[in-house]
């Protein structure tokens, strides 16, 4: 099934050269072009958030002031969080790869509402512009969580940043609605729910969370802005208001938001793991339904952020147990992926390196998640670097692995060219090692009592802080290498051809890069997306 070199042709007409004017890009309703525009915006956000992270790490090279003052430090970690959460992690996989591949995978020419899709991109940019404006005018120092009463009284520029995220929320909602409707109504002939690629299932679960949770965040941020501007006293204890209510509302969104980040990554892994092992996915239904399971249970775990915030012991216990259900669904997925790899004909390519990284970060991050969901343990670890390291492992490490796996797996499809495999593996190694070197010291620091978001620290923590900073530098260089070889591949890469991985996924049946309306002729689906075993054709009479 592996394509020979003779087959690798670069199509003459495709979506990239369908129009070359700026207008043909800026006003496009082609989901693939919108996906690419998102890619540029999201990668710029990643760069910006990454630079802020590096600045923070370098500040921690020595105890006390190193080169920035405390208020700048506070602003930097706020902006790092805001940018990475809302402008990188949440839109990353759905808005880029979801936009690009969902219609192709379901056999449609476009998403259900192409103009809304374009609108959602501009809403994203508008929200980003607002936030950027707020950053330039000083930025906020509240942390990305905007806890009251501090966020309603701080003198830093918090309102434009809140409004920026509020506006961004509409973009998330519109994208979610678009995907839900596309998956429900636009599946091609023969494509039953049980034949949907698992990436589509994962995006479906994600969209449900996006649609149901984001409005609550929007309202909550609006209330903070109103509080800050007018002082209605809704979260102000002096007027009878309850700051804990804010935390409830905030985490009702922000905990499910973690699954907005990780579910698409899980979908990517389900796709790539089957292609890398050249085997049927093990337990298709289990993977598909566990995506919905995570989406559902994710809505009932928010209280685990508030174990020490004054909620009752009973509530804390209930939220602790509910949180562990997420672990069950996640481990179902982990076992099915490992089961898929078992006895597979694995080729150690760059996407496979990221699959390995993903499994490691997911299991390690997930296990520490079970640990912090245990109330008695969390009391010790709450608001320390342990929690920071835990959530970076799971929602950054694992989500990033999914993102990079998707980028490397689908790059040949999106641009029609192959990147340098050797450099791909080097960069993957650097990133996985760098990430560990950054955050394993932080697990240790947190366990020793280093609180998160502190500008200063006692001298005995310095070694671990320096180790963490060194790790983050390694991580950064990994990204630089990726950027270089991918940029080179765009022009000089070998022509990929239709299906360089020999994958059975539907998106590989169309040319690379795909034509404007995705297909030479609309597909009819006769098999599942991960079926590598040829069906014995006993029933066919010659």
């Amino acid at each position, binding site marked *: 099934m592996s394509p020979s070199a003779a087959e690798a042709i670069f199509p003459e007409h495709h979506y990239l050269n369908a129009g070359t004017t700026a207008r043909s890009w800026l006003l496009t309703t082609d989901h693939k072009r919108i996906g690419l525009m998102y890619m540029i915006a999201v990668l710029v956000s990643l760069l910006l958030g990454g630079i802020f992270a590096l600045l923070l790490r370098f500040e921690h090279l020595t105890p006390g002031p190193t080169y920035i003052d405390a208020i700048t430090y506070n602003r930097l970690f706020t902006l790092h969080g805001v940018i990475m959460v809302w402008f990188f992690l949440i839109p990353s996989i759905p808005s880029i790869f979801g936009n690009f591949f969902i219609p192709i995978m379901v056999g449609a020419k476009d998403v259900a509402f192409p103009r809304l899709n374009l609108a959602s991109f501009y809403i994203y940019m508008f929200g980003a512009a607002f936030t950027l404006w707020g950053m330039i005018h000083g930025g906020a120092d509240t942390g990305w969580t905007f806890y009251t009463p501090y966020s309603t009284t701080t003198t830093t520029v918090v309102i434009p940043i809140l409004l920026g995220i509020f506006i961004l929320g509409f973009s998330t*909602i519109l994208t979610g609605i678009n995907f839900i409707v596309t998956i429900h109504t636009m599946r091609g002939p023969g494509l039953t729910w049980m034949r949907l690629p698992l990436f589509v299932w994962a995006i479906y679960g994600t969209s449900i969370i996006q649609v149901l949770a984001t*409005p609550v965040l929007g*309202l909550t941020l609006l209330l903070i802005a109103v509080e800050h501007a*007018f002082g209605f006293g809704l979260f102000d204890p002096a*007027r*009878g208001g309850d700051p804990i209510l804010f935390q409830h509302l905030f985490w009702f969104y922000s905990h499910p938001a973690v699954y907005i980040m990780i579910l698409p990554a899980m979908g990517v892994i389900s796709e790539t793991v089957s292609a890398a092992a050249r085997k049927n996915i093990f337990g298709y239904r289990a993977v598909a339904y566990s995506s919905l399971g995570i989406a559902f249970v994710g809505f009932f775990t928010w209280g685990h952020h508030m174990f020490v915030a004054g909620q009752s012991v009973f509530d804390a216990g209930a939220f602790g147990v509910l949180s562990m259900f997420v672990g069950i669904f996640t481990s179902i997925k982990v076992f099915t992926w490992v089961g898929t790899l078992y006895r597979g004909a694995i080729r150690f390519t760059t996407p496979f390196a990221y699959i390995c990284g993903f499994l490691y970060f997911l299991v390690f991050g997930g296990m520490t998640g079970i640990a912090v969901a245990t109330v008695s343990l969390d009391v010790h670890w709450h608001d320390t670097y342990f929690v920071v390291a835990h959530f970076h492992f799971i929602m950054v490490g694992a989500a990033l692995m999914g993102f990079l796996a998707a980028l490397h797996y689908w790059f040949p499809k999106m641009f029609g060219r192959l990147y340098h495999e050797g450099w791909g593996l080097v960069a993957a190694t650097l990133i996985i090692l760098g990430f560990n070197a950054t955050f394993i010291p932080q697990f240790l620091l947190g366990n020793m009592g280093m609180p998160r978001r502190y500008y200063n620290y006692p001298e005995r923590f310095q070694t671990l802080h320096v180790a963490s900073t060194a790790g983050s530098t390694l991580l950064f260089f990994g990204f630089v290498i990726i950027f270089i070889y991918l940029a080179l591949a765009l022009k000089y890469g070998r022509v990929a051809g239709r299906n360089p991985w020999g994958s059975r996924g539907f998106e590989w049946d169309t040319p690379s890069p795909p034509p404007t309306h995705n297909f030479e002729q609309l597909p009819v689906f006769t098999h599942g997306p991960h079926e590598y075993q040829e069906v014995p054709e006993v029933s066919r009479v010659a």
Partner: protein
Amino acid sequence: MLPESHVAEHFANIQVQRQAARLGMWTFLATEILLFGGLFAAYAEYRSLFHEAFLLGARHLDAIMAAVETVVLITGSFAVVMALHYAKSSRAGMARLCLLAAAATGFVFLALHGVEYFHHFKEGALPGKYYSFAELRVTGISLFFALYFLMTGLHSLHVLVGAGVLVWLARRALSGQFSGQHYHPVELGGLYWHLVDLIWIFLFPLLYLV
């Protein structure tokens, strides 16, 4: 058969397009309910914390006025249903009339609410630090009015948007764009209007009656 122009290129046929539009609208309505959900949660908490203040606050609000507003909104919903009926039977003039009538009920509602707001501004029954109404001094009363203004304010914003949508539909109805084959824009606009109505049906008893 339908004129080609109604079916967008990427849809297989009009049924798929209609189903997509309907599902999209229902999903959007779900987000609207969640948007208000946060405020309802806040209401539930503060009502249980400041039971007395919420009772006194509700008694102070003008329930008769709110009842009139309720009737106005429900009339609007009826007009929207009739508009859909006329759009389906290709009677453009009547469809337009009903849509405009429904939009008008929205504006009447806003005007009546404006009168209420004006009244509260004058007596100083305002949220948070602006509260200065001398006759009603009880812990938590400013929170009641904060929620009152936030909830009805957000709802009024929706009424404004909904009425705008209805006016836009009325303009399209007049140019004869709707028929027995092509009426789903009216249906979708109507769905949104019903939701706006429905939210008020919950706000009215919670704020004015109980």
